[in-house]
């Protein structure tokens, strides 16, 4: 029998430890992925993930089914918390010491081996480039291209003008595109 989030929620609210553990288990990967994209550091992303689940647990009673699926609500809570985290400036401090641990992307899904390798190589380059971007450029890009928020939503979340959001997203994409091209030219030159 498949247990849904909606099945687990009443037990979680009632203090059922096992139900809560199961709910967290279900969403940890997504929340951690968001936290890692935001922070660019594994250790900080782990801390942020824990903070997010503390927040979710403390506000479980505020979720109503009419708000939409629980997963979407949870990710909105996670996003808002990650943005607050960014505003508090901890990310800036963290960037002073580079995190030597670089996470590898999950294995490619079913596709042609060559195409898979190209996709992986490109994804790796983009991922590394994203991690190297300054937070002011990285965050709008993560919210836009990874989280699917509109420009207006991003402007509201980050409390910056719409024009600034557009310009930062374009600059971030250009930065990554130039890195991709530079790497290709490097490889072409070495061949």
């Amino acid at each position, binding site marked *: 029998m498949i247990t849904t989030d909606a099945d687990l929620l009443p037990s979680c609210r009632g203090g059922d*430890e096992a139900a*809560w*553990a199961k709910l*967290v*288990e279900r969403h*940890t*990967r*997504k929340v*951690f*992925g968001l936290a*890692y994209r935001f922070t660019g550091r*594994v250790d900080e992303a*782990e801390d942020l*993930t*824990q903070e*997010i*689940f*503390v927040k*979710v*647990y*403390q506000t479980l009673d505020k979720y109503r089914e009419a708000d939409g699926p629980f997963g979407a609500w949870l990710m909105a809570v996670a996003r808002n918390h990650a943005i607050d985290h960014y505003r508090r400036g901890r990310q800036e401090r963290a960037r002073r010491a580079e995190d030597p641990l670089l*996470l590898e*992307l*999950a*294995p*490619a*899904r079913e596709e042609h081996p060559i195409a898979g390798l190209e*996709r992986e190589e*490109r*994804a790796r380059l*983009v*991922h590394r480039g*994203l991690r190297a971007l300054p937070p002011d450029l990285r965050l709008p*890009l993560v919210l836009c*291209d*990874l989280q699917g928020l509109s420009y207006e939503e991003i402007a509201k979340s980050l409390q910056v003008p719409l024009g600034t959001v*557009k*310009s930062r*997203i*374009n600059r971030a*994409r*250009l930065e*990554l*595109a*130039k890195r*991709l*091209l530079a790497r290709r030219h490097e490889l072409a030159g070495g061949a």
Partner: protein
Amino acid sequence: MDCQRAEELLSDHLEGSLHPLLGAELEAHLAGCGACRELRGALAEVVEALRSAPEFEAPVGLAERAARAARTRPRPIEIRPALVLPQWLNAAAAGFALIALGAALAVIGPERGTRAAQRLVGQTVTAGSSLMERKDRLLEDVRVLGVVLSTAFEGRIERVNERVNDYKRLLERRKPSPEVEPKQGSEARPPAVRVAAGFRTGATRAA
């Protein structure tokens, strides 16, 4: 259009949100600029890579740690918004507080300069009543009275009169000017002084 301007427009162009006239200008530039064409291609790849980015594997044990961390923190008790008292009630409370302070001074006032201390008590009570009516000047009044009281407690009882007179002058200055000019010939009544007669200085006493 130069390459820098073309770069600025690439994202909008990719998303189809560029104005048709600008779009045509950009297309014209791209047709003649291999570097910008290449950049546009790479930009499209980046966006595609980001939008189809696979998820990261969460570190082993993170889910258990996160679940435990959340459970060990107590859920916050919902706090209702604090009761907002109307301003007049705040002023009234401050006035009552001052009256109470005056009464307390009457009991434990300084032994030296008893007469002056009694006047101080009376003045404080009167000022408290005045404050209840003059709620919008509350903070300034409290500050001035604070100076008066601190002077008294410092033992410089002889200077209390000066402080109280300062306070009286302050209240005099605050009196609202009459909105309607008094008719000629009619006797303009002097503005009523809310605060009772203050401490008489040596000079006034002599007079």
